[in-house]
């Protein structure tokens, strides 16, 4: 899994840049994400994000694009984004875990 990560990230970045070819690259890497791990880790996020609305301070993350998700979590991990709650959550997430979470939330529906 760890060796697969660079391909995933580069695919994600290509997509972020608008590269059409990235779509082809993204699909196989998304399948490589650890779905069960993503689902387990997501329960930590749901505590705060599970009832978010469009105007909430805590944003909706269900359905968030994978690329954006990875970028934001890594920015929190690097403390480039300010909220200490999110910095704290992101601090212990490895790249593989962030990828698993991103893949999970990309298709997850907000709890009803």
């Amino acid at each position: 899994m760890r060796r697969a990560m660079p391909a995933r990230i580069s695919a994600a970045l290509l997509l972020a840049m608008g590269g059409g070819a990235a779509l082809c690259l993204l699909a196989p890497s998304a399948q490589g994400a650890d779905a069960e791990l993503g689902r387990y880790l997501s329960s930590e996020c749901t505590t705060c994000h599970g009832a978010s609305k469009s105007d909430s301070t805590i944003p909706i993350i269900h359905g968030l694009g994978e690329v954006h998700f990875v970028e934001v979590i890594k920015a929190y991990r690097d403390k480039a984004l300010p909220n200490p709650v999110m910095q704290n959550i992101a601090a212990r997430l490895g790249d593989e875990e962030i990828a698993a979470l991103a893949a999970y939330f990309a298709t997850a529906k907000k709890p009803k």
Partner: protein
Amino acid sequence: MTNITRRHFGIMAGASLSALGLPVLSAPSLAQGKPRVVVIGGGPGGATAARYIAMESKGAIDVTLIEPQKTFTTCFFSNLYVGGFRDYKSLTHNYDKVKKGGVKVVHSLATSIDRDKKQVVLAGGVKVPYDRLLVAPGIDLKFDSVPGYSEKAAEVMPHAWKPGAQTQLLVKKLNALKDGDQIVMIAPPNPYRCPPGPYERVSMFAHVLKKKGHTKSRIVILDPKPAFSKQGVFTEGWEKHYPGMIEWQDPKIHGGIKGVDAKTGEVKTDFTNYKPALVNVIPAQHAGKIARDAGLTNQTGYCPIDAASMKSTVDPNIFVVGDASIAGEMPKSAFSANSQAKVAAMVIRAELTQSRAFPARYSNTCWSLIAPDDDIKVGASYEPVDGAIKASNAFVSQRNESADLRKQNYKESVDWYNGITADIFG
């Protein structure tokens, strides 16, 4: 005395269990069915665990939640009701969505646990068998930890440390105060539910008094501890918003809390006798009675657990989450309970259905409101390290933060409340 079987639970939902004549099913026939998880306590720990086990096992595990009350009023955010920021109704939640999520909710009191037979005994004698039991009874108050205090005395000097009528009584007494009246709070010793809670509550007292123009009123906190959670930023906030109104006394100042007299309304310390108009006594605490009676507690009065699973170190078939557990460096909070419940739910599923197990991850954040739009927070991540739950990446609000940041914290706390209550109750 009868056993409850899975077959009969559907019929009994909402019915009085003891009123029904139930057949006894032999142990072998029970063993042939789905694994059974019973959860005692429908608060942040218990309801979260029940929901997650039912949701994630997709019907492979039979989940029963035993909770005597038909609605649950949260202790967290009850200070905002004290301060007039929320109404009581907004803190009250029902179990409709927990039931819809596949959990059998039995509104009855669990009176004891027969660990040898792996059964929970309900009021009326009905027995509920389990393969795994999750115990989340919260705390009980040790009334006699404050001399003169009792359950009866709490009708005059409310603790309001368990949600419900006590919180409403405290608010009634607070709103009846006149300018110049004094409030005395006796704060609890460690460890207790919601470490910043007493100090947020005092902030809310002061806010109500200030709003009413009570410039002559004073609040005294008699604390058995030498320090308290988020002390630096609480103290800064009190000086800013309520100058001269709040006096915090540690044991060096009051010399020892000698006791209360509910008949005369007096509070005595080693140095002073107070006769305040409102006394809020928050006594010492320990794990809920059912956990103590079942022998799940140690000399601390709380339940020792395995840091990687929240499993009781006393009984491998029992898990304890929330305020009743000894969760290392995690504070006793709804956030902690909710977090612990998810780890326990994951481990229970793995044990009963061979689903995948993952390393335990815990987290907590506690928000506290000092004044309108001035909210502070403290939090950390937690993981098992050398057999104990240890904190990492801890953070706490700092002095001299911008008003915008504090306002953002408050909005965040409101969104968190909506999120976590949806996570707990569906």
